[in-house]
């Protein structure tokens, strides 16, 4: 039973100067769906999900998120971003604030929650990412894996309806990737709608409902993981999988 549509991209293009970063991309993400986007670097994966919360503006086509059409200078973009969480490759925690303040500043300043309510929510999500004891530290004192989990909690504190992950484990030391992926798997199991750009195929196999393979700004293949990993339709996807699964 497919849920309601949360993200709907219709034939969107995106240029950086003369470089076409997105080329006629169409994608639908429904409530509760877990979409994993993969592909070689420079294929436009990050650009695509950055468009989903307005960090990039697409140049052509139609993009609707939660029924709101996005375009340059959309007046509703701020409201929308509160419902679309984003986790970055470089964590982007606020270094001048403690972990707890990182988590509460959004709810307090944007959602105008009281400090007490915001801290309550923050502690709940710190529990969920398994680092309640780090609340009063500065991000710089944490390991990369812990920082990324704080970043996930920070997004969750805004109670988003969909979470975007932009290569969340690519900047991590190998031994820390697992702890972040565990949190993401738990999040997926809780029913969160997720769009994840990643090279972690083990994670994809475990949680993805839909695999999207991109190359040169185009979506080459969209298929369920069973098909994608065992018998991909496109030759390019097969080659890509061979290359990254070899190791």
């Amino acid at each position, binding site marked *: 039973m497919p849920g309601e549509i949360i993200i709907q991209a219709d034939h969107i293009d995106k240029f950086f100067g003369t470089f076409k970063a997105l080329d006629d991309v169409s994608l639908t993400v429904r409530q509760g769906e877990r979409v994993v986007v993969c592909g070689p670097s420079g294929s436009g994966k990050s650009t695509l999900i950055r468009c989903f919360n*307005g960090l990039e503006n697409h140049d052509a086509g139609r993009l609707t998120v939660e029924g709101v059409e996005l375009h340059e200078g959309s007046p509703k973009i*701020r409201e929308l*971003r509160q419902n679309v969480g*984003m986790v*970055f490759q*470089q964590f982007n925690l*606020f*270094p001048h604030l403690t972990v707890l303040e990182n988590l509460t500043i959004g709810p307090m*300043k944007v959602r105008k929650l009281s400090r007490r309510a915001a801290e309550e929510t923050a502690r709940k999500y710190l529990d969920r990412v398994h680092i309640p004891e780090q609340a009063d530290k500065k991000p710089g004192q944490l390991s990369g894996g812990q920082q990324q989990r704080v970043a996930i909690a*920070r997004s969750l504190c805004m109670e988003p309806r969909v979470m975007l992950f932009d290569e969340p484990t690519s900047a991590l030391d190998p031994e820390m990737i697992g702890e972040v992926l565990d949190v993401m798997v738990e999040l997926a199991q809780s029913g969160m709608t997720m769009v994840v750009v990643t090279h972690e195929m083990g994670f994809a196999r475990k949680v993805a409902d839909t695999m999207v393979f991109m190359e040169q700004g185009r979506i080459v293949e969209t298929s369920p993981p069973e098909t994608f990993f065992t018998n991909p339709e496109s030759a390019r996807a097969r080659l890509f999988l061979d290359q990254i699964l070899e190791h």
Partner: protein
Amino acid sequence: MPSFLKKLKIADYVIAAILVAFFGYVALTVEGKLNYEWRWELIPNYILRYREDQDVWFANLLLQGLFNTIRISIYASVLALILGTILGIARTAENLTVRMLARTYLELLRNIPPVVIVFIFFFFLSQQLIDWLNLDRWARGIARSDNVHIWEFFFGEMRRFPSLIAGVIVLALFESAFVGEIVRAGIQSIPQGQREAARSIGMSRLQEMRYIVLPQAMKKVVPPMANQFITLIKDSSIISLISVQELTYKTVELVASTRLIFEAWLTTAAFYFVICFTLSMLFRRLERQR
């Protein structure tokens, strides 16, 4: 013998001897050729003077001037910091007009001599503002009131209050351009990812600036800002041109009435040096402790 003396070589003694000879020669020339009579013993009186009839010590010309310089520097710094921060933000604004305006202001100030700027600001801006606010009358009112002492602690002689304010405004406007550049550099040193993270949790541009970018940027610019504060103290001597009663102006006055040309100017130079050098050492130490 202190350790640094042991490090001295013959060449160092030669250089020291030459320097002593040079300054001795200059002093002798002043005394001989210019027929100048050194009267250093008079200077302390113009710093701090004992008034026998009232049995009190009071600050004379030079010390009054020094106090006014300190007051003006502090107020002008605060004002320059506020204006400069606005300017720095404007320099990084998305809106082209705002950016161009800020840039124009900066380039004008950078490419016009400070003295000319001071006169222009004085006649076109601060003078109008003071007339418009009717500060003259207000200050005269305060000067006659009972709690004039508190006011004078903060602003010096109240009859001169409008002139002091004019000086503060002129100096702040002048320095704000440079403070603005420091703030801009600070803002631009904050990684783009910080802004994106702020935006992705729904912050407005204003909130992003206020809660995320500025706090980090301001921390980074403390050292250059401290240097700019010292520069401001030195620059404050320019506003003597518009008759603000600060140290340089008072020295001019003193020299005019007593002919203590060399003594007075050397004393004033020493005042500026001690203040600026002390602050500079202090900031350096604080910087190392951070």
